């Protein structure tokens, strides 16, 4: 059944990918391109966060820690050791993976509020580490990270180059989420989310599957962090700020937790929402917070599901109507 439906959807996905590839040719505005790139970056973080949180039921905030670790690792690599930003992507991914082991091995043994608090403590702990080793991290000033270059061409003046870097990473996040969801790993993960006790007496080692997913998601987020640092040219302690946690969670909640495309829809909504209300600068965090609470109250399954339900409702309302018309 499922393979059938994904076969049916395949042309749609292909057209979608082609459209995404054409975006830089259609959009000539650099600032709009910047927003789209930021949407992609946050889409990657939110998609991987959702893989562990929405599908895996691991309620944690470590995804932003991995993002920050990736950014700082590539930054330190570039500034202290002179590594190129390309190598920085790998350094960022590897560092985030190492961090996910350090954080995941103890943290994933506990769950619920303990997992939230433990990952929150790690998040603050890493932030304290950054503050402590200011010789390497630049302390509160942060680090200036060099931009990507290919030959002698700097990417700084070519937003579309950045777009073509970040888009594959986003697509890779979606595909890996999909593959994990459909594999036995996903089955074990979702079974554990539904009932950890029943899962373990049914032969699933919850810890193992949680850890595997946690590390995978961390790796991709770390690369995204490295990209983000080099793209913006700077990485500073603001990356640990509470408001990023709020925004990240908001993307998942507004888009739809445990859905494939929800987090991307969410990151699109939040990124552009922040932009639309940019004139209201200081009111934006309030608006974002309010939207999150409203979403929790009125569309708890996210906009993707909400729209789906609305469509289904409209359809079911239409169908009897049509029947009546044809009857007349």
């Amino acid at each position, binding site marked *: 059944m499922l393979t059938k439906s994904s076969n049916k959807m395949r042309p749609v996905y292909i057209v979608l990918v082609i459209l995404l590839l054409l975006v830089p040719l259609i959009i000539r505005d650099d600032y709009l391109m910047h927003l789209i790139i930021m949407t992609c970056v946050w889409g990657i973080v939110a998609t991987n966060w959702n893989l562990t949180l929405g599908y895996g039921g691991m309620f944690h905030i470590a995804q932003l820690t991995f993002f920050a670790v990736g950014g700082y690792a590539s930054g330190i690599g570039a500034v202290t050791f002179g590594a190129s930003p390309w190598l920085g992507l790998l350094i960022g991914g590897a560092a985030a993976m190492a961090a996910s082991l350090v954080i995941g091995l103890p943290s994933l043994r506990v769950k619920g509020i*303990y997992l939230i608090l*433990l990952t929150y403590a790690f998040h*603050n702990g890493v932030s304290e580490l950054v503050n*402590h080793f200011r010789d390497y991290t630049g302390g509160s000033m942060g680090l200036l990270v060099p931009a990507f270059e290919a030959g002698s061409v700097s990417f700084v003046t070519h937003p579309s180059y950045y777009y073509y870097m970040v888009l594959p990473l986003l697509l890779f996040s979606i595909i890996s989420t999909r593959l994990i969801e459909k594999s036995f790993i996903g089955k074990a993960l979702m079974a554990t989310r539904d009932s950890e006790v029943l899962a373990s007496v049914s032969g699933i080692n919850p810890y193992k599957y949680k850890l595997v997913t946690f590390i995978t998601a961390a790796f991709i987020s770390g690369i995204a962090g490295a990209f983000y640092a080099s793209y913006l040219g700077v990485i500073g302690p603001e990356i640990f700020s509470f408001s990023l946690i709020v925004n990240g969670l908001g993307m998942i*909640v507004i888009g739809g937790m445990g859905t494939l495309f929800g987090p991307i829809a969410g990151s699109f909504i939040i990124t552009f929402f922040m932009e639309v209300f940019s004139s209201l600068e200081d009111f934006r965090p*309030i608006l974002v917070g309010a939207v*999150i609470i409203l979403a*929790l109250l009125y569309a708890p399954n996210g906009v993707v599901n909400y729209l789906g339900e609305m469509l289904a409702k409209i359809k079911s309302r239409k169908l009897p109507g049509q029947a009546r018309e044809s009857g007349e």
Partner: protein
Amino acid sequence: MESLLFRGIILGSIYTLASIGLSLQWGVLRNLNFSHGAAITFGAYIMWSAFNLAHFPYPLAFVLMIIFAFILGIAIEWLTVRPFFGKNDTNIFIGTVALSSILGQVYFLIFGGRQKFLEPMFDGVIKLGSLRATIHEIFTLVITFITLIIIWLVLNKTRIGLSIRAVSQDQVGAVLNGINTRKVYSTTLGVATILAGIAGVLLGPIYYVSPHMGEAPMVKAFIIVILGGLGSLPGTILAAFIVAFVEVFVGISIGVTWAPLSLFIIMVIILVFKPEGLLGVSSRKA
């Protein structure tokens, strides 16, 4: 040495007030509230406004703060706990995180980003032997002591207190015995927020008042309630003083930036090896 001990005791008292509300809330609702830090800040700002803008006398400002904090607590419960309670703990967490972000920004808009100095009720310094203490520090000790006694009396001698204790021991049993659990939930949040507010009032003269002043104490309060064992009030008090002493002594002997790191390491060790905390009851039950 005495002065270090004394500082630890003062800090421990404030941490006790900052964290005991969280512990109470865990006991009753089995969840934690991430807008607790904003509640701490709230207390400090209300006090500052009543004192500096409305020029109320200190005791009246204090009473006002308590009333407003109670209202804020009920609002937190109504907005971010009640709709999801028993259905989705995740949403309670996200809701309180979002609310905290909203409140922080509201403070910023109203009071600006600049730090405000909250004057203590009593100015001045006294000498006790070789120990120099500000009167505010003595005041902090007294207020903490009185607050704890009042909390103890409320929990043990009043109807609502008994209901709170009943609900924390047995949700279903409490309902069967005719306890209005909704009232208990909102009262608990109200009381927790009052306690946070008092902590904010006491912190104000020490750390200045700013829109996000409550966040650091909130992180410490989380460490404290975990360390003491979620839901255990004696454990929370014990842990508050342990955290305060660690912070003071590590800060002096190794370096100020090591203090939060060492607290964090303690928290990780506790969560990994004894998640039920020092005085907590094992959460694993048949």
